[in-house]
């Protein structure tokens, strides 16, 4: 992998200063510093620590957390900056500016928190941030793009665990969080929020750890099915909800400990029956959970930035899960219920039938010749290409064809790769310009005009059975109309294997199809040689 492209802190700061947005932000920082000084002076004068709750009662929740007004506005601004961070992702051109907004939002939230609270432990906090930040930076710099899904899963687990820790900390020091009632008990509403935050956080943590292990190949992707798991899972969930309710009447440590422990267990139980192929949905779903956990903690803290962020992240993960499910034509419930790919009974018959049908084998020279003569070529990469690390070679081939005057486009199915948008990142890393890469709906009508459809490492996403064969397990899944192209090249390791769905693919046997059997990277290298 080339030199790391993310910014060093110094360069980032420099670039930040050049952008207009940041001039605005630094003006804000100056303003908040001024307000902070005045606010703190006022606090000291009144002899009142900012977070100490005087006579709060549930009815008088307005006195919940007497943060100075500027701090409330600062948290709101940081929430708005997070919205802008996501908004920036509507196009690659504005995305990096969006990411900076996110960084500024986080900085504002952290600084506001530190300034408005009497910090007894500044050195410890600085060390904690330095340790965490250092680890984060090194990981972000070293991670291979193919490993993004497991990195994201690992990051989700950290958010989940952090939510659990914050929830427990709030339990042990409710005074610091402003949720202590005058009679020395924790506000019951806060107890529910705390219980929910801990439960969702713990589920996110243990679920993400399993997802990480499955994605990283450290654990078999095969679903692990416990007998009676639906009853066990539903029972455990009901128990957690019940305990959270009971927590409002009894705030003893056993209750919160039981909620925490059961939630860790249920997170684990919920993810182990889900097969490796459904992991894109799971990762998105856990993304959503980590957001809801942050939102629940935001409710406990009455913190606008956390609530806005939690809602954003929660919706984002939910939408991505929905998109992934739709792209696989699977219902969310069936993914959660798990077990896809567990029984291969149905596909056995189809597997036996396929060897009887004739198919054509092409060579790299044939492919090179036809590609060079073509006007329009559409390349369909799948996860197999990433496994073979063929993306750079593929881009070289694309470049050579473009020099020959061929119009080259890349078509990406929503479930190509192991997480939403994964294939786009892999192609971007290989320097494929993003305006040559198209989504399914945008390019599907162009196959009729395409001279060559070049399928590399994909299978199910081009299977016409999804359109015609009602008995097929992938029926209804949106697929590329490759059968309309004049010629199809299908790079595949061997004729034996099928896609993860275990379904045979009619495209193999079509008249215009040439199978290029072999390792994807070597095959593309040979084509390049012949060009």
């Amino acid at each position, binding site marked *: 992998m080339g030199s790391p*492209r993310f910014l060093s802190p110094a360069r980032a700061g420099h670039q930040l200063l050049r952008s207009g947005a940041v001039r605005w932000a630094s003006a804000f920082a100056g303003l908040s510093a001024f307000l902070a000084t005045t606010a703190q002076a006022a606090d000291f004068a009144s002899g009142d620590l900012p977070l100490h709750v005087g006579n709060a009662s549930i009815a008088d*929740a307005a006195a*919940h957390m007497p943060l100075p007004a500027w701090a409330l506005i600062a948290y709101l601004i940081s929430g708005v900056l997070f919205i802008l961070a996501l908004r920036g*992702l509507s196009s690659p051109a504005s995305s990096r500016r969006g990411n900076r907004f996110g960084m500024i939002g986080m900085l504002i939230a952290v600084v506001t928190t530190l300034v408005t609270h*009497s910090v007894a432990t500044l050195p410890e*906090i600085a060390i904690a941030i330095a340790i965490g930040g*250092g680890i984060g930076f090194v990981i972000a710099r070293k*991670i291979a793009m193919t490993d993004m899904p497991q990195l994201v899963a690992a990051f989700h687990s950290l958010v989940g665990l952090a939510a659990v820790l914050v929830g427990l900390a709030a339990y042990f020091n409710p005074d610091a969080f402003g949720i202590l009632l005058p009679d020395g008990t924790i506000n019951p509403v806060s107890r529910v929020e705390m219980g929910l935050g801990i439960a969702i956080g713990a589920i996110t943590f243990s679920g993400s750890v399993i997802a990480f292990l499955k994605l990283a190949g450290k654990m078999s992707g095969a679903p692990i099915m416990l007998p009676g798991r639906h009853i066990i899972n539903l029972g455990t969930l009901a128990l957690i909800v019940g305990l959270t309710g009971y927590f409002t009447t009894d705030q003893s440590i056993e209750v919160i400990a039981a909620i925490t422990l059961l939630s860790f267990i249920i997170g684990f139980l919920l993810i182990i029956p889900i097969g490796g192929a459904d992991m894109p949905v799971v990762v998105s779903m856990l993304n959503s959970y980590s957001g809801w956990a942050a939102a629940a903690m935001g*409710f406990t803290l009455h913190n606008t930035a956390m609530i806005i962020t939690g809602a954003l992240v929660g919706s984002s993960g939910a939408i991505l899960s929905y998109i992934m499910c739709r792209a696989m034509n699977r219902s969310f419930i069936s993914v959660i219920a798990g077990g896809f790919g567990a029984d291969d009974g149905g596909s056995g018959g189809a597997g036996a039938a396929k060897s009887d049908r004739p198919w054509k084998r092409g060579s790299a020279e044939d492919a090179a010749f036809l590609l060079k003569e073509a006007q329009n070529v559409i390349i369909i990469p799948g996860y197999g290409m990433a496994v073979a690390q063929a993306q750079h070679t593929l881009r070289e081939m694309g470049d050579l064809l473009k020099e020959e005057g061929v119009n080259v486009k890349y078509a990406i199915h929503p479930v190509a790769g192991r997480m939403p948008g994964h294939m786009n990142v892999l192609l971007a890393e290989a320097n494929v*310009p993003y305006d040559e890469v198209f989504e399914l709906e945008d390019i599907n009508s162009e196959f009729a005009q395409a001279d060559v459809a070049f399928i590399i490492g994909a299978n199910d996403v081009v299977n016409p059975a999804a359109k015609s064969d009602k008995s097929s397990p992938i029926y209804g899944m949106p697929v590329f109309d490759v059968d309309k192209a004049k010629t199809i090249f299908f790079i595949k390791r061997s004729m034996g294997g099928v896609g993860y769905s275990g379904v045979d693919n009619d495209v193999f046997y079509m008249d215009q199809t040439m199978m290029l059997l072999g390792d994807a990277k070597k095959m593309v290298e040979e084509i390049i040689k012949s060009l």
Partner: protein
Amino acid sequence: MDFINILSIFVMACFVGYYVVWSVTPALHTPLMAVTNAISSVIIVGALIAAAAAGSPVAKWLGLAGVVLASINIFGGFAVTERMLAMYKKKERK
């Protein structure tokens, strides 16, 4: 702020999230997940409050551990998003 105010902000933010996320181009869904990861670590605010407060050593250490975890996510999440976004390039027009 009372509970209803907070709830209103939350519900509105869910709607904002819904529309903003649908406007994200599918090509950037992986960076979207990385950046949402980073921003959900705003939970560091809670960890900082716990770590900063005097009174309960248990809460302090839980808070400090939370600060470490959230910092990994914040720095790691934003840095890896930046690294990915830097790779997205337009075609060079000749």
